[in-house]
């Protein structure tokens, strides 16, 4: 016996049941789609609203942080910058400001995290890479610091800060000659770069070329010479090269500058 030869009662009802179940299924699916669509739309709207709200809040926090930072209140700026980063981690501006605040608070090693994140977001951000190199060198990691500085130079062969960072790596690794060469390549591009001039003088002093260091420092513009770091170096160079009177005079200027600070 086969189903075809002995049609039973069920055989005659089957199409009707199928149709009911089919309609039910279709209805449910349709309902699901509608509910899903509504839910999706609501969620998207909500997410978008939240995102918009977060972006707005992040902007507010960033603005607050920037404002406080520019008022030289970095400790107060820090929680706002941290909140801005938390709300909008994909913003390079947030990450960069946080790094800058850390540096101002002399928590330079803590710059590394936000700077790395900024570079993940935008690998071409030269300022982030330069600062990352600086922070790495500060912590003693000249290997990675050198790598970041070299990448900066690849992108911008005339970058004086990158050249200076390479010079610092050389110096910290005990290669004073190479450091001097790097710093002078930077000075060839920007002869008045203050930081490079000081680094050059420091290297010359270290290499026992005190007279040269002194003359290079003496030739700095007056405004640069009156800065505390320059005065300290000038006093050192003068003392070491036997210019006792000049050293004493620079000490006096340091005293005045220190009192003023």
């Amino acid at each position, binding site marked *: 016996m086969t189903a075809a030869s002995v049609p039973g009662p069920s055989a005659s009802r089957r199409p009707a049941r199928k149709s009911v179940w089919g309609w039910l299924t279709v209805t449910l699916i349709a309902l699901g789609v509608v509910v899903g669509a509504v839910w999706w739309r609501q969620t998207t709207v909500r997410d978008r609203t939240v995102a918009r709200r977060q972006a707005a809040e992040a902007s507010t926090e960033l603005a607050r942080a920037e404002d406080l930072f520019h008022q030289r209140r970095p400790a107060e700026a820090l929680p706002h910058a941290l909140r801005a980063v938390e709300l909008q981690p994909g913003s390079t501006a947030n990450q960069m400001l946080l790094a800058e605040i850390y540096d101002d608070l002399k928590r330079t*090693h803590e710059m590394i995290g936000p700077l790395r994140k900024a570079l993940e977001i935008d690998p071409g951000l030269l300022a982030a890479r330069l600062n990352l190199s600086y922070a790495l060198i500060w*912590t*003693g990691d000249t290997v990675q610091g050198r790598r970041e500085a070299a990448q900066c130079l690849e992108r911008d062969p005339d970058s004086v800060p990158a050249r200076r960072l390479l010079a610092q790596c050389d110096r910290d690794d*005990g290669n004073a000659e190479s450091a001097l060469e790097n710093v002078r390549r930077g000075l060839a591009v920007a002869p008045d770069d203050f930081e490079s001039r000081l680094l050059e003088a420091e290297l010359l002093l270290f290499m026992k070329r005190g007279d040269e260091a002194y003359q290079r420092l003496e030739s700095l513009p007056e405004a640069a010479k009156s800065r505390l770091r320059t*005065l300290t170096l000038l006093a050192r160079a003068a*003392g070491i090269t*036997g210019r006792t009177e000049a050293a004493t005079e620079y*000490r006096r200027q340091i005293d005045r500058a220190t009192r003023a600070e």
Partner: protein
Amino acid sequence: MSFVCRRGSVAIFPWGLVAARARLCVFLLAAVGRAASGNEPGSIAFSDETRAAGIDFRHYSPLSPLRHIHLYMGSGLGWLDYDRDGRPDLFFAQGLAFPPGPLSQRPSNRFYRNHVSGRFQDVTSLSGLVDADYSMGVAAADYDNDGFPDFYVTNFGENRLYHNNGDATFAEIGRSLGVNDARFGSSCAWGDIDGDGNLDLFVVNYLKIDPNHYPTCTTDYQGQQFSVTCQPRDMEPERDILYRNCGDGRFDDMTESAGLLSGSAGKGLGVIAADLDGDGDLDFYVANDTVPNHLWENVGEGRFVERARLSGAAVNRYGAATASMGLAAGDVDGDGLLDLFHTNYFKETNTLLRNEGQLQFLDVTEEFGLAGPSRLRLGFGVSLFDPDNDGWLDFFVSNGHVHDRLHELGRRDEPFAQLPSFFRSEKGRRFRDESNQSGEYFRKAWVGRGCATADYDRDGRSDLAVLHLNDRPALLRNTGQTGNWLSLELIGTRANRSAVGAALRVTAGGRELARIRQAGTSYLSCDEERLLIGLGTAPQADRVMVQWPGGKSEEWKNLPAGTFVQLVEGRGGTP
């Protein structure tokens, strides 16, 4: 003329010492055999032998709820061979709660006798050294030239001078001699400032603190008040003291007549007595906390002039006064001039000052590779020594913060306990951080304070002892592969008997090494009196020239590596 395994001219043999001497000579002959094979300096390794050596001291300085600052400064330690058996014994300065409990419950300083077996025996009570004040610094030397080392201990309270009676006991005579100043003493150093053969004493004081009106500080964090240690920069500095040893059992306070009251007071924590300008007399360099360091140049006739600013030793390369703690002096670059090193606060970097001659110093910390590895550390004790015997001085630095609750204030990046540091010299050109490769001790964080070196097992390798705040100390035995060595004991006859302040020039393997004998260094601590000279692969020191305190120079020739030698003033040749 050399004196290998011989007493030399000073014939003082206390109880049973002859036998000990004989044992030591046998030991030395074995050491000579080992050295003769010619050793290559290799890896650095220190093994923590504290427990095995039987040292059960534990520093006690419970941190009070109000965070009183002296409780964080900790204590130092000192090596001295008190029984003249040829092995350095070990003194630990002990802390104390504040306010102190009943006398009977106070812990004491501890003194351990070094046995031939490698074990240390607690002889605190036997030697009469039980004390119950908060002790800070230690400096050992034979101030009365009787052949036995005495020692001075600074306290947060009345300082002590322990006279060695020569029979394995000490007598406290600080009060009777008037050297018992009761201010906040920190480091101290012995040195003969006028070349009269009597050791004078420099005592560094830290802050003006009246225990009855103790300044305490709080900070606000997220609306909550936290008690924290006060910032030293907001506290009053205390003046240092210089005592002149009259040679007749009296000490005169010559602080004022010496000119030490001129200029501003420091907040001193470390001191070095050394001839920094090479003019034959002792100068003092003082590490001050948050204010410029002092360099007191000895200008003769018992007078000193403060020259730190003019010499470039007051502040770092950026013109900033650092929070200086521990000090070391030595010729790190092999140019024959004494360079200076001081440990500093977290994020300041330690500072290496290269001696440029003419009492001029240059901050070369970065150039010597010491800045990066020390920036995220707070350094206290420092030992400048040659544990691999390659003839180049290396650094050990004990680190640890002065704030224990920064993590509660959102500052997890500045831990209280920190890893110690070991910096190895690359032939005097720069230093390499080899902390990770120097032994298990270096892989644990400690709240490090004082440290000092000695070859305590007499194997020709410099060992270390480190004191940790509220913790056990570490006796670190040098187990590394080292070069050849020469162990020198200097005995003054016209100069002070401990020969403190003597300057040595050792010629070996075509190099000339400059070394000095000091009594008081590091942070609150004191190295052993013997000088262990690393000779590298050289089989002998071709020449050892000693400039005795007072100016007279003598030389000894062809001293074989691997020997313990006494150089007695008046028995050398004329250079």
